[in-house]
């Protein structure tokens, strides 16, 4: 007898494709958040699966902190070109320059500053929906996130007042100024993402694989040494993120497990240089993926606070 059976990746895939097409069907001006990271790489493949042979019916949007790994930017631009998609980039630098964002005194990370930039881009292009690659298994506050996550006209998430989500019937109705974040990978785990990358033979940026890099220890993590400051006419964009005299620099064989920017991403010592190696590492991992991110460590409720303010 023929077996009409889907394995777990096929299940997650068809669920995500269904969600992508609901977005195309229910929203006027959706965007897809594409950073070049592993989760959004899967999103792109799912978008291809949902919409080919047509064009992917939404532009890609990325918010740059200005502290990105150059490898990631190169990959992001190339991938968008390959897919024939329109890529919109908005930067924290622009927002600082035109005053729509202000850095808290003494704060080095620009993670929080992505919020006003994202909200600004949503307003500028009148996006009514942004598809993101967040997964519920990433972090405690994410575990309560819906597939269709409603945001009020300030872009805020109210965890106590979410729309119930029943069966596969997503309510995408909005009033003017309101907004939806949609997370097709909600049910995917870190392992699923890598298994999918393997199955689909997806290219990922080189920094996911083992390489040699100068790092220093701070806040319990190995942070990468930022690129040298060359343009003396401008202030050092990495001021505060450079190793201090009491933070000796070490050359490490390492890779990233999850990518924020160079300031918030901890490197992990690893010899993994194939997707198979990485899957092996994920299987054997003893800390969560976000254990290597400085932005979540700030407080127990760090992610929850950022989401309420309009974070992805």
């Amino acid at each position: 007898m023929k077996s009409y059976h889907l394995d777990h990746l096929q299940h997650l895939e068809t669920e995500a494709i269904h969600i992508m097409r609901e977005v195309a069907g229910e929203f006027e001006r959706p965007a897809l958040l594409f950073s070049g990271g592993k989760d959004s790489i899967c999103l792109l493949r799912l978008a291809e699966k949902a919409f080919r042979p047509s064009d992917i019916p939404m532009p890609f949007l990325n918010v740059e902190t200005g502290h990105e790994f150059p490898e990631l930017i190169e990959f992001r631009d190339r991938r968008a070109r390959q897919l024939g998609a329109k890529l919109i980039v908005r930067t924290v630098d622009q927002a600082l320059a035109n005053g729509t964002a202000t850095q808290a005194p003494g704060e080095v990370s620009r993670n929080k500053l992505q919020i006003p930039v994202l909200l600004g881009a949503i307003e500028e292009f009148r996006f009514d929906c942004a598809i993101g690659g967040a997964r519920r298994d990433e972090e405690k506050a994410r575990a309560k996130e819906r597939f269709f996550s409603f945001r009020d006209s300030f872009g805020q998430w109210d965890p106590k007042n979410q729309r119930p989500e029943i069966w596969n019937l997503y309510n995408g109705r909005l009033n003017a100024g309101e907004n939806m974040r949609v997370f097709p990978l909600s049910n995917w785990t870190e392992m699923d993402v890598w298994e999918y990358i393997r199955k689909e033979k997806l290219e990922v940026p080189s920094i996911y694989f083992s390489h040699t890099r100068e790092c220093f220890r701070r806040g319990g993590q190995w942070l990468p040494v930022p690129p040298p400051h060359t343009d003396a006419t401008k202030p050092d964009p990495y001021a505060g993120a450079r190793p201090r005299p009491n933070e000796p620099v070490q050359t490490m064989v390492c890779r990233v497990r999850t990518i924020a920017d160079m300031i918030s991403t901890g490197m992990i010592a690893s010899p993994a240089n194939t997707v198979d190696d990485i899957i092996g590492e994920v299987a054997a991992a003893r800390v969560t993926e976000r254990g290597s991110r400085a932005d979540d460590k700030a407080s127990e409720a760090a992610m929850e606070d950022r989401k309420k303010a309009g974070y992805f």
Partner: protein
Amino acid sequence: MSASSLSPLPSPVAGGSVASSARAPVPVVDILRLNTCGSVDDGKSTLIGRLLYDSKSLMEDQIESLERSADITGGGQINLANLTDGLRAEREQGITIDVAYRYFATPRRKFIIADTPGHVQYTRNMVTGASTANLAIVLVDARAGVIEQSRRHTAIASLLRIPHLVVAINKMDLVGWSEARYNEIREQFEEFLPRLDIKDVKFIPLSALNGDNVVTPSPHTPWYVGPTLLGHLETVHIASDWNLNAFRLPVQWVNRPNNPTDPRLHDFRGFSGQIAGGIVKTGQKVMALPGGVISTVKEIHTYEGPVTEAFCPQSVSVVLEHDVDVSRGSMLVGVDSLPGGGTELHAKICWMHPRPLVRGKKYFLKHTTSTVQAVVTEIEHRLDMATLESVPNPTELAVNDLGEIRIRTAKPLFYDGYATNRLTGSFILIEQGTNATVGAGMLLPPTEVVRSEHQDYAI
């Protein structure tokens, strides 16, 4: 096929060897979605924490964070419940206020847990968590036995047609591991189960706090011969949970390439959607609803290329032989198994909003991929949760009420009874103005099947 049909092997998880090798593991075969429910303090969070902890699904930083909060608030005792009580508001109030999803995998299966709250005012969250579940765990505190909440949760599981139910009789350590107490609670359940519609029920005595019968068999229950909770979750048969009988493709999006470079795509018109029931094959006759025009399936497209056959719940794009008027909200159906159709609907409903359901009010109704205007013409009865009896002619349905209603829609709906197909038999009601999702509806079997108003299109 899924490993669930094989005889049980010793679980590598219970043996503690999971993920200890650096070799890439063999892909897990399938996914079990489960939902946990119980009253506040029955031990739900502890149970989930225990499942994650004992199946070695926890990472060092999660354990560290548990230990950190144990030092601060718990007098050094790790509190497994903290693992799942994610939001700060909950930590402050000490109750789970919303649905949270947890993921873990054993070499046999991948699990998605919807952790749904037990507090009386949050039935809507249980409905949310349970709507996609294969299995529900209803927790009972062995000291308290069956209470109104247990009945309510079981009734919701039955209403939503969750195929499998586990009654986890927890805190057995606090009743001296008494077999008599276990049997007593079991009998309390069996008293009302016949009034519900659940085929597969399993009772398991356990202690979430100490881990007895969760992942490892308990030395305290020699009188219990069944599997541990995880053992049961790993082996319960879920292969037949999708409807493969009657082809249904609700159209989500019409795929029409803009200025394609490939000349073969100039006239490409694919109807994209997730198959909500049955199997479709090229050459098969299908009816397009509304309209009732019959055509033949010319091609079935996937990203990997054309296929000759596809089945529920795959996502595909179907190309028809004829130029048929089909758009988002249309449904392609097999001609040998037509759905019901009409504007007068009869449904069970769970009300989810503080503003009650009232007769005569207009709502939006979303069913598969189509959204129409609808008005509730009659509230036939409300289900009394304490007695599971129907109370006829209530004036309204309040939040967390379950009842039966009649609805009229502005345009016909093409549907199946919920008992036949969860995807084509369900709908949500959306309040106009606020756009809040206010109700979850389950359609009763149609009284009339759609009829083709047209001659066979393919002459």
